[in-house]
């Protein structure tokens, strides 16, 4: 979840909270934040074969003020870091962050002795909720990541888990 200080409501309704979180999980609107190669797999997930629209997350909004999940797909360079933080701050609460791909998790294949240009992982300056490994991760992995996020939001797993045969 986000880190801003949001005043909690004075009266809590358990059932209303459950319904609200179910609604939020059912329509997560991602922000188009493809930085590098993982962006193409994100586009492929939104396209016809893998179809993220089935899970309610088809509406990729360019503006941060209209979306609730930021999928950091790609390498974050030191020049880009202030821009990412600004965009994260512009998103309204409640908001989540998915780190997609090895570069967003820990710098990926670009970490070497004496590197001067990239930030080694999105969690160095953002609170990340879900990590999706891969270089780039398959679209099915991104869908699984969205389903895990839904589990985090609602508290229970809404879709069956894929078993290895």
């Amino acid at each position, binding site marked *: 979840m986000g880190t801003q200080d949001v005043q909690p409501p004075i009266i809590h309704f358990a059932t209303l909270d459950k319904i609200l979180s179910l609604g939020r999980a059912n329509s997560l609107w991602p922000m188009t934040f493809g930085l590098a190669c993982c962006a193409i797999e994100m586009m492929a997930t939104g396209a016809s074969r893998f179809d993220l629209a089935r899970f309610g997350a088809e509406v990729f909004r360019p503006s941060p003020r209209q979306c609730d999940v930021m999928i950091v797909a790609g390498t974050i360079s*030191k*020049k880009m870091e202030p821009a990412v933080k600004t965009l994260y701050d512009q998103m309204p609460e409640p908001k989540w962050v998915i780190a997609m791909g090895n570069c967003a998790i820990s710098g990926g294949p670009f970490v070497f002795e*004496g*590197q*001067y*240009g990239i930030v080694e992982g999105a969690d160095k300056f953002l609170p990340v909720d879900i990590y999706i490994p891969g270089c780039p991760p398959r679209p099915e992995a991104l869908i699984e990541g969205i389903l895990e996020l839904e589990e985090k939001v609602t508290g229970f797993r809404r879709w069956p888990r894929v078993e290895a045969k």
Partner: protein
Amino acid sequence: MLLAKIKEALSSLYDGIQETPETPETSEAEEATEEAVVPSEETAPAEEAQAEEAAAEAAPPPGPRETDYAAKGYHLDVDLPSEKVPEAAEILLRENFFIESIAGVDWIDDQQLEAVYDFNHFDELCRVVIRTRTDRNNPEIPTISHIYQGANWHERETHDFFGIKFIGHPNLEPLLLPEDADFHPLLKDFKA
């Protein structure tokens, strides 16, 4: 055909360059090389070849050198001092070459920085490489961005990575590094 033409055009740049002292002293055709030292390089290759073989430590005569394309990937190798680079670029633009890239190389053992300019031609295959070396502690090369506008970005990138100052460049700010970067990453002694 284009290769011969551009070689001749570029060799006129070497008129002012001094001949290295070893070659005339050790060659047999001493008189021939002494009277017409630089311009007759292409017309007297046989005598020169003898002179070069005769003196093992004689430096090769300055001038455009043809290279083995299949082994190296380019046709003409031109070694110039930094001041002559804009003239060479003007000659190449007149002959309708286009600029492919500008690369910097850090020769830390020689304490020199080298800039390598790659040119190619749209109609006939002919790759010309211009090299120039400059001192590592105060690297300065005149710009060619008023001749080849594409060199504007190439020179900014070379300045970013190596710190070579291109004299006369309109804005030599960092291109690929952050705007406030003051380090030059591709130098051999760079520590993050």
